[in-house]
């Protein structure tokens, strides 16, 4: 068996290698990201309503608008984000947000230290969504705000057995890290496809470490079997700027 493995790695091997590559990339930090940044930066998304297209567009524009110090610090914190149940319109008077998704059902705060976000956290409650997200049939066309760039981004996201709260976590990491790495820019056209399951063998090329400069993946412990890794998202860009 060990011989066979060395010839053709299993899905688990492929996912583990890609997950390790992401950790190494994050530890190395962003290219040119030597800005001193406060440690332990966290972003907050206030969730009233989840519109997948608005969520992808909002996440991208939030990450694109960050200043260099915040980008580097938040990237090193693995784009950590807390999702809080709340109505952006009820919160904005006392806590002005940084970004609002089209439609107004989602609002972004930070990235900031936990202390800076504590007043907002005390006002709201952790978003709970055990049901899978309701996604429209067919792929979504999302335009990142900005003048059309001519660049295209293909995103594929797993939804089968994925809780709504976990969906938010996976998609947010996928899009935010891709933006910070330069794989997604203003005016890009993003095609978002939802599938029940992303089989690693269907994404062998994208998962190849040699392609990492144009690919962002989201691999995490399986929500129903924590001993297994599962592929939750793949983002492929035609911008060749990704670097670690």
């Amino acid at each position, binding site marked *: 068996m060990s011989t066979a493995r060395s010839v053709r790695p299993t899905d688990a091997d492929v996912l583990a290698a890609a997950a390790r590559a992401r950790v190494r990339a994050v530890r190395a930090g962003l290219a040119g990201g030597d800005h001193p940044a406060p440690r332990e930066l966290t972003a907050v998304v206030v969730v009233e309503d989840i519109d997948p297209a608005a969520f992808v567009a909002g996440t991208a524009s939030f990450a694109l608008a960050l200043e260099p110090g915040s980008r580097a610090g938040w990237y090193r914190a693995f784009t950590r984000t807390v999702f809080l149940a*709340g109505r952006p319109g*009820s919160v904005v008077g006392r806590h002005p947000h940084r970004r609002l998704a089209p439609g107004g059902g989602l609002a972004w705060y930070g990235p900031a230290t936990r202390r800076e976000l504590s007043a907002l956290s005390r006002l*709201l*409650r952790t978003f709970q*969504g055990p049901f899978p997200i309701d996604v429209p049939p067919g792929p979504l066309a999302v335009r990142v705000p900005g003048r059309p760039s001519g660049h295209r981004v293909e995103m594929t996201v797993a939804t089968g057995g994925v809780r709504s709260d976990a969906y938010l976590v996976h998609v947010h990491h996928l899009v935010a890290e891709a933006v910070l790495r330069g794989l997604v820019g203003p005016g890009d056209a993003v095609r978002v496809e939802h599938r029940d399951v992303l089989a690693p063998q269907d994404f062998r090329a994208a998962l190849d470490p040699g392609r990492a400069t144009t690919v962002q993946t989201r691999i995490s412990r399986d929500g129903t079997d924590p001993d297994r890794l599962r592929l939750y998202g793949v983002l492929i860009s035609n911008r060749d700027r990704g670097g670690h």
Partner: protein
Amino acid sequence: MQLPVAPATELVVAPVTITPTKPLTPTHVKGLLWTDVLVKASAQTGGVRLVWNNRMATVTTQATAFWHHLELTEPHTDWSRESETAIGERYVRFHGEHRTADREAVGVRLAHADRDGWIHPAGLRMLRLWQAQLDLLGVGGLGLTTDRPLATTAGAMLDTLADRGLLLDHRRYGGPVHLDGPRWGLPLRQLVGADGHPNYLLPILRELIPMIGPRRRFLLIHDDGITADYLLLERVLAEFGARTARLSLSRVPVGGTARSSRYGGWRGSTLGDLSAVSGSADRAAYRLGMRLYFVGTLHRRSAQPFRMGLLRRCVGRAARLLDRAAARDADPNRWNAADPPARLRAPHGYVDPYRLTASLLGRPGVPPAPEITAIYT
């Protein structure tokens, strides 16, 4: 010339309801006696209505999860013979064990309690024991065992709240329904859990919102451990046009703690225990003495722990006050020292029970006038 007549208003007094799962503790007794004096004294100056409906307490998971646990663990117990302490100790143990309740079974019992007024035999037993104690205390006539369907259904109330934009409803994601406190700078507050079960706030809204009317003023009475919830309730009621006031009462610590009764620690100081130690005092002296202590010495923010010795002294003092009042009433040349109308001023729309009661304590040589005695005995 005829002066315009001010429209009569009705004061709606709504104290937080107590689940019949444990004995009445000094904190409960303080709330009940403050409510009793407030309602009876305020009734002498205007219209008063007390809102008490057991279903505000029984249509809660706090009660039904416990009762479901009793059904499972003790299907053959004869609850009509159990003591309040024995039932209360089971309740404390149940809450101490942090078991996960069977969601569906609790849901069935919640629906049964809501629709049919179902109460587990242990709860009925507790209500019967309370009734005897409350009769002795002179609050039995307030209707504290009243049970009727809540004024509107849970679904209709959620729709009403949603129509006003007061909810954050995440049921479509399998999540909870929250009241949108942040619109007033208050925290988001869960109203229905992700398991679909409402908490104690929904029955209160179901009962009170349909009562709102232009001639009514609401007084919400609660213990200060749940002030945050009541601040929110007040905002929600105001959103529907209600005029409201709140009376927040501090808990009475027993055995060094001021925690909720579900943690226990009340042995020897339940209303059942207090009824038993009233000693040689007659019923009127017990009633007046209990009020002198719980309303006249424990002010609304008092942090004083329960003191049995002080309660006994209050009962003794009550007996002497009543003796003097009786002697005065028998005296053909009696002088009426008390001035009930002045004492019954209601600057906030209700008579302040502490001030009224403390005035009895402050002038020990002067027996209370008959109108005042009637409120307290």
